[in-house]
């Protein structure tokens, strides 16, 4: 469909933004070394050296701060920088002498440098109360608190056995794709949708609403004369799929929304295959502004792993070696019936052998 407007031009071509050293060594890098926390060098077959300084970012940034980053890039990197898949900002230097001054100015601005190698990196997260209608908790706030608390594992003051990838999603839609994270912080609703009968007909298509429920908890019903739905609360598993298709079924509930903690997932193929995160803590009530129960729960898990894991062992690999019973013992997390899967693949999660530690 052609219009006289400029459309479908796609993103600007990346080559326009690559620094000369990258153009020169594109696809011809030989190896890299981590020089110090947050700083690494990539060496080309040509012998050229590209230095990367990785700065932590809140991800939610105002144009003012972005312009600041641009200035730093002009001053130290010939105007070149990039962002990472975990939303850190990477300054790309050719002059090693510029590293420390840059780090000093970043510190000035309030941006710690780190997150490379066996460290925690920024927390992949989502919108939360800042912008989404579906959130069961805030995103940026919880992330801020957890990163404040774990900063020493980011800036290299404390060592870790391997990479630590934490992600947060503010509802089960999991925009943070937390399902394969070392530690996942997941906002959960715990109360079935409250049906707004008066809005139902106006805002929603009842057959779609009924069809949207995976557990068939939603039935069409007539409520004081108007077509609406009723919900069998016993069957509700709080997925909010009905709310996604129908605004008249709000799930958010101050008394019951909160956070669950999941552990042991990974994405990389290194050593073990990618894994899903598994339930560690079913529910922690929202406690803004600092969510102390969440930060301490996460810290406890990180510390148990840091103290007991072997080199290179990701959290999930560590747990599989010591066994889940030992994990719950070490972290002092209570094991409940909610930890036992009862969804589609439940049977396969049962312990179907006599191989046990006693």
């Amino acid at each position: 469909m052609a219009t006289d407007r400029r459309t479908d031009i796609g993103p600007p071509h990346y080559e326009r933004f690559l620094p000369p050293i990258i153009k020169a060594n594109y696809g011809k890098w030989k190896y890299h070394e981590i020089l110090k926390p947050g700083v690494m060098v990539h060496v080309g077959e040509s012998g050229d050296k590209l230095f990367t300084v990785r700065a932590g970012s809140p991800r939610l940034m105002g144009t003012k701060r972005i312009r600041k980053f641009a200035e730093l890039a002009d001053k130290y990197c010939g105007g070149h920088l990039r962002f990472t898949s975990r939303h850190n900002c990477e300054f790309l230097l050719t002059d090693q002498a510029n590293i420390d001054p840059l780090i000093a100015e970043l510190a000035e601005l309030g941006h710690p440098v780190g997150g490379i190698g066996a460290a925690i990196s920024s927390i992949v997260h989502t919108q939360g109360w800042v912008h989404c209608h579906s959130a069961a908790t805030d995103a940026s706030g919880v992330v801020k608190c957890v990163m404040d608390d774990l900063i020493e594992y980011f800036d290299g003051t404390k060592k870790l056995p391997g990479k630590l990838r934490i992600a947060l999603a503010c509802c089960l839609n999991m925009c943070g794709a937390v399902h394969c994270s070392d530690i996942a912080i997941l906002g959960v609703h715990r109360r079935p949708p409250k049906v707004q009968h008066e809005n139902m007909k106006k805002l929603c298509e009842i057959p779609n609403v009924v069809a949207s429920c995976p557990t068939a908890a939603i039935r069409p019903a007539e409520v004081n004369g108007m077509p609406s739905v009723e919900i069998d609360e016993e069957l509700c598993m709080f997925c909010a799929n009905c709310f996604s298709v129908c605004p008249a079924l709000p799930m958010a509930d101050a008394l019951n929304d909160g956070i669950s903690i999941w552990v042991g997932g990974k994405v990389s193929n290194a050593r073990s295959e990618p894994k899903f995160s598994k339930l560690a803590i079913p529910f922690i009530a929202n406690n803004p502004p600092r969510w102390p129960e969440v930060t301490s729960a996460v810290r406890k898990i990180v510390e148990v792993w840091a103290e007991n894991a072997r080199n290179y062992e990701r959290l999930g690999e560590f747990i599989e070696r010591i066994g889940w019973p030992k994990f719950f013992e070490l972290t002092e997390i209570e094991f409940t019936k909610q930890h036992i899967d009862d969804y589609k693949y439940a049977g396969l999660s049962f312990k179907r052998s006599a191989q046990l530690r006693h």
Partner: protein
Amino acid sequence: MADSQRSTPMLDELKKGPWPSFVTQIQEMADEGKEACDQLLGLLERSYHEKVGHWKHGGIVGVMGYGGGVIGRYSDLQQEYPAIAHFHTLRVNQPSGWFYTSDALRTVCDIWDRHGSGLTNMHGSTGDIILLGTTTAELEPTFAELTANDFDLGGSGSNVRTPSCCVGPARCEWACYDTLDACYNITMAFQDELHRPAFPYKFKFKFSGCPNDCVASIARSDMSIIGTWRDEIRIDQDEVRNYAKAGMNIERDICGNCPTKCMAWDGNEIEIDDSNCVKCMHCINAMPKALRPGVDTGATVLLGSKAPIVEGAQLSSVIIPFLKMEPPYEGIKDLAERVWDFWGEHGKNRERVGELMQRVGLGNFLEAIEVEPIPEMVAYPRDNPYVFYEEYFEEGDGEEEEEQ
């Protein structure tokens, strides 16, 4: 100034501490005179007190001719916070690998200062530049200025979502194909599919240059393209010895962590049985100076990962074990189009490709997209006896008859 009027005791707590604060960011822009940011602080402070969000479902808003790229958002407290009564998001397609020049960044900032809240996400978790918060009226002007400056919107809704890729050959010695070029090429090839929703649901591409999968493609994209190689790992034995000298326990930490135990270390040289190497990257990750992927490189193509709604989360699974990745990437494009044809015809509303694969059965799905089943596609063959034998013999004639 805006901030003076407003007390936000709870949010102020989030300005403290070593990690950079998003509150400070909103505050900075409020201090720049962005009323929307000031009211956002107010609304957010209120959410912190009440422990609920104050946003409503977004209606369909967007720019002319596009079905996606804008997330409509409205506050449910419009009277009290008129400046954010509308607070829509634009998704701007990022450059491959998230590379920028300072000028490029300033260009985007200029546009957004003129037309929006000045708040962004660098970046959204699909990969876009997120321009966070503006009114319906500003959508077209913003779009016009973006395109005038060679930027375009990314995806939202039931269409191709903004593809993303790892830094790859630009700054990584392990890239087994050109992730930046592949990502750009595919993005350009599917502009129409990206801007005009025509699918049952969203479809995401992610490109990782090697099995470390630095864009989490196997967990977060309907089509995951992960670099790999099929020849031998390149070994520099001198460097191996250097790692050993430097104190690395090669036997325990490297060989011991090899998933197929296909490595041997005799104290002097490392030996790899490449026929049993599953390209996990561990040994290479641990000894970047000594080991490198082979030179006959390409990618493994997988399909189907997604978040849990509603059948449960899925990881992508192998469809093409090894594909050479050269422009124009016909292999990827053909596969995607065959998948979309079948999905478009048989997919239910809001059914992701990964869910479709399971509902119709991977075997039938493969038939539909004309891909031969091979054992590389499974972790193990079926363990239940419920085989759908599709044909049987009728009495009388010995010929096979298709079951209807």
